[in-house]
């Protein structure tokens, strides 16, 4: 019968997602950063490739360098995730949302479904574009990679997966903190400030701690040549998913218990 289902809630959340400008702007910025910064990085490498030292040339990864823009785009997708939930609190519309769908977990699952489906499509398209664009810039001067290689294909795909997971991390932080500025600050701190704090630790600690940082996991996911002291691509993916799962479960638990 005509009852609220996960499908109807998801459809409603899709309408809400696409009818605010911040979502569209967020994805435009994601695309511009991934492509634009990727093009800048690859052009710069091409420019001084001949003067680069031999060790750097030896460990050079044409895939992860062409996907370098994701390290900037990750903030844009994070903000999309944060805003998808915190804008409901800042405007007060969360009450209307829960009045329409009293099963709050259903709202969380519906929002996640919308956020993940849209982000994964945009992110995968843009990482493939950035990869191909980067290889074209490298061509003739710098060694290039081909999607015919399984490791290369995996790295590019995981680049899009990385961005998608970070969007859900932003969403999870928004669930817990309910306030846009707080959630964005924590998100940025996790990606930027934590590595700086780790940097002041003794060298032996740094090596073991650094590889657990979200940005290092992202680097590991997008690398064809396993970088030193880093996890393999699949382990890194699982670890990152684990972090986000913890944040989402905490956020959903709070959402159900707290007054709206």
């Amino acid at each position, binding site marked *: 019968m005509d009852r*609220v289902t996960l499908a109807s809630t998801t459809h409603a959340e899709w*309408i809400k997602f696409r009818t605010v400008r911040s979502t569209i702007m967020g994805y435009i910025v994601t695309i511009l950063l991934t492509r634009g910064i990727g093009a800048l990085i690859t052009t710069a490498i091409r420019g001084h490739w001949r003067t680069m030292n031999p060790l750097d040339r030896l460990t050079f990864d044409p895939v992860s360098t062409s996907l370098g823009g994701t390290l900037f785009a990750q903030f844009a997708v994070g903000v999309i995730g944060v805003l998808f939930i915190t804008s409901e609190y800042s405007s007060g519309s969360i009450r209307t949302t829960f009045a329409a769908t009293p099963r709050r977990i259903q709202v969380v699952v519906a929002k996640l479904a919308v956020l993940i489906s849209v982000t994964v499509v945009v992110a995968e398209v843009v990482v493939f574009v950035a990869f191909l664009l980067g290889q074209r810039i490298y061509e003739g001067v710098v060694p290039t990679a081909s999607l015919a290689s399984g490791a290369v294909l995996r790295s590019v795909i995981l680049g899009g997966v990385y961005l998608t997971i970070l969007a859900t991390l932003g969403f999870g932080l928004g669930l817990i903190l309910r306030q846009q500025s707080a959630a964005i600050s924590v998100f940025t701190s996790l990606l930027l400030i934590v590595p700086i704090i780790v940097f002041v630790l003794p060298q032996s600690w740094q090596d073991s701690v650094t590889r657990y940082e979200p940005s290092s996991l992202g680097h590991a996911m997008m690398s064809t040549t396993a970088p030193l002291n880093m996890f393999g691509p699949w382990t890194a993916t699982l670890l990152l998913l684990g972090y986000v799962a913890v944040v989402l479960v905490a956020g959903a638990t709070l959402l159900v218990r707290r*007054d*709206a």
Partner: protein
Amino acid sequence: MISVEHLSKRYGDTLAVNDLSFEVRPGVVTGFLGPNGSGKSTTMRVIMGLDAPTSGHATIDGQRYRNLKAPLREVGALLDAAAVHPGRTARNHLLALATSNRIPVRRVEEVLEFTGIAAVADKKVGGYSLGMSQRLGIAAALLGDPPVLLFDEPVNGLDPEGIRWIRAFFRALAIEGRTVFVSSHLMSEMAQSADEIIVIGRGRFITQGTVDELTASADGTVLVRSADNVALRRLLETSGTTVDSANDGTMTVRGTSAEAVGTAALAAGIAIFELTPQRASLEEVFMDLTADAVEYASAVESTRHG
């Protein structure tokens, strides 16, 4: 029908609602009256399943809100008119709500037309006046054509024409047999738009009844003008009533009836020129009723601080 049973809600140190029980019947407009901060909004949020009660419960036709299958088809509510994403248009806001509860899309157009905001439906809600937001909130409440409706301070921000419209609208909803529950802190508003009134103060139930019942239950006054006000006053005061004199030669007598005043004047041989029994206004009744709750609360506070 809305039932609230022994409902209490505590936020930290504050007991916002204190053992509140009442029922709201279908077919009439029920006013929910209390001073600001008396717990009206909290009670409505608990009814809507938004805030969890500390103890007790609220049900709609016997069901908890969170167990309703398609809530917007069963309960419509206007709690906070401004609570819409400012960057979204009214049409898209209503479309998302309708979609979530599988309400046909044509209902969106119907409620937009009905509330008179169809012309601005494609404008962002952030630019709406309070009155327009209020109409959008009413449109959202009506979307599922629900038998039970809650409105929290719906008159705020409406112009006089809007207020007249909304009163007639509440009346029409009630005549259709719906349960209409409207909160306000203004007694004058309630006197004109509600059939039955529930009065609360400081989170506690004070009284429930029709406007007539509430005003009848309060002590009335008698307006009197006589040939010798001074003598009549002395006479009335010795029999334990209070008398206020006005400059226009009239006196207001409390705690007695027009019959008693007339009989006393005849016995004393004082000619009566005017004798009018006066009913307490709803406003006076409300002040009397809530004064106790306020005094009680401030007494508690002064003991705590003292």
